[in-house]
């Protein structure tokens, strides 16, 4: 059996090294599996001229806009999202809801039991008209070009 003992570089091991480096580099490229681009947004929500103190703004992608819904918090009339958390590029229906007051939290089991014990009792939660949420007529188009710096969106709502 002939054992190859020629000088460096060995033809066989060079190709092995190249092959090995290619193997090592496979999988290093990061592939984003998102078929859409999120955009940084910020904006203002006014109710009857006053900043909406506490609520949520929801971006619901419309036909032709890829990607999931995005819900952001409105505090003191302002909302903001970075490009990581923001809505996908495209046209969205915008739904704005007021946050429930702390005494009627969304997860408070004790309150509902207390209310149930006095079935005649009526409560009032601050709500926005349905034309701003369930039957929203608000819409916005976010696009990457104006997303940096974030585009400022203004929504002026009226209770009447």
């Amino acid at each position, binding site marked *: 059996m002939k*054992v190859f*003992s020629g000088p*460096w570089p*060995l033809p066989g*091991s060079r190709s*092995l*090294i190249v092959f*090995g480096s290619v*193997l*090592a580099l496979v*999988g290093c490229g990061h592939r984003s*599996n*998102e*078929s*859409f681009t999120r955009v940084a947004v910020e904006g203002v929500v006014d109710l009857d001229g006053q900043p909406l103190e506490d609520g*949520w703004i*929801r971006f*619901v*992608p*419309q*036909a032709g*806009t*890829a*990607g*999931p*819904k*995005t*819900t*952001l*918090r409105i505090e003191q009339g302002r909302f903001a999202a970075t490009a990581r*958390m923001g809505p996908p590029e495209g046209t969205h229906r915008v739904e704005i809801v007021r*946050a*429930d007051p*702390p005494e*009627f*939290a*969304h*997860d*408070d*089991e*004790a309150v*509902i*039991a207390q*209310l*149930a*014990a006095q*079935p005649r*009792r*009526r*409560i*009032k*939660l601050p709500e926005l008209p349905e034309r701003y949420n369930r039957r929203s007529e608000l819409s916005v188009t976010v696009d990457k070009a104006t997303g940096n710096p974030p585009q400022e969106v203004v929504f002026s709502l009226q209770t009447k």
Partner: protein
Amino acid sequence: MPNHFARTHRAFTLVELLVVIAIIGILVGLLLPAVQAAREAARRMSCQNNLKQTALAIHNYESTYRQLPTINAGGVANSNLSGASLFATILPLIERASEFELYDFDLDNTHPQNVLVAGQRLPFYLCPSASLRRQVPSCAIDGGRAPGTYAASIGSLDYSQYWAFMGQPRPNLNGAFVYSDDAAGRTGLRDVTDGTSNTLMIGETAYNLPDYRFTSGECAGQSRFSFTYWVNPFPGSTAATTQHAFNPRDIADDGVFVAGWVRSFRSDHPGGVQFSFVDGSVHFLAETIDALVLDALATRNGGEVVSHESF
């Protein structure tokens, strides 16, 4: 002759050895992450199996009663949210008849007698991928109830538990399951007019919301992570909707938290959430799914056309 002797006893050169070591290193490097991914793949399959078993139990329920269970069952008069969940209703069909016998559906789910059952961790209601980031139960508000990581779909609209006290009309949920006070009363397979293979039934939730905090009691301010107890019919506990978000990622202490996330389907799997559909099939839905497609899948009677390539 001596020359030939020397040649036959020549060993590997240093370079050859290094090349062999490098190749072994590369192969091990390829293998190790793959082994970790295999563990997650195995946990995911076990999680899928739980969804399948639950779906089969619901189908058995349907065969017996000719209708689907409601999200809530029993409970104290006038309070339909302190009773038992759908997951408690199907206990006898998932081979836990003794727990079902022990559970009193006329009492609250936090009643000491019911906590004997509600406090049990049932392995088929816990996804192995879902990491419980706090001890459950640990606070008084937990009520001694054991965690769960699955929720039934109430559709693309949320349920307001205060509707009756606000003088609103009855809710009209559009998912596979409804609350017993819904306008529809309850649902059956005949009501799933979008097709049972196009409608979500059971999905996942996870203890993965660090900015979701206890708001009252001795644990106020601490991270609650999730509201899911398998026995609790409350919205956000064993009922979830696609209205707010899908698989939200909550970054701890970044000040960004949306209450609707608690009522959204979410998981600890990378990149999406698993669902059992009404036909009993289990699918993984990527978190990048288009919102309109997801809402179409969530509704039982929306009349949307959903192609199977879109999810």
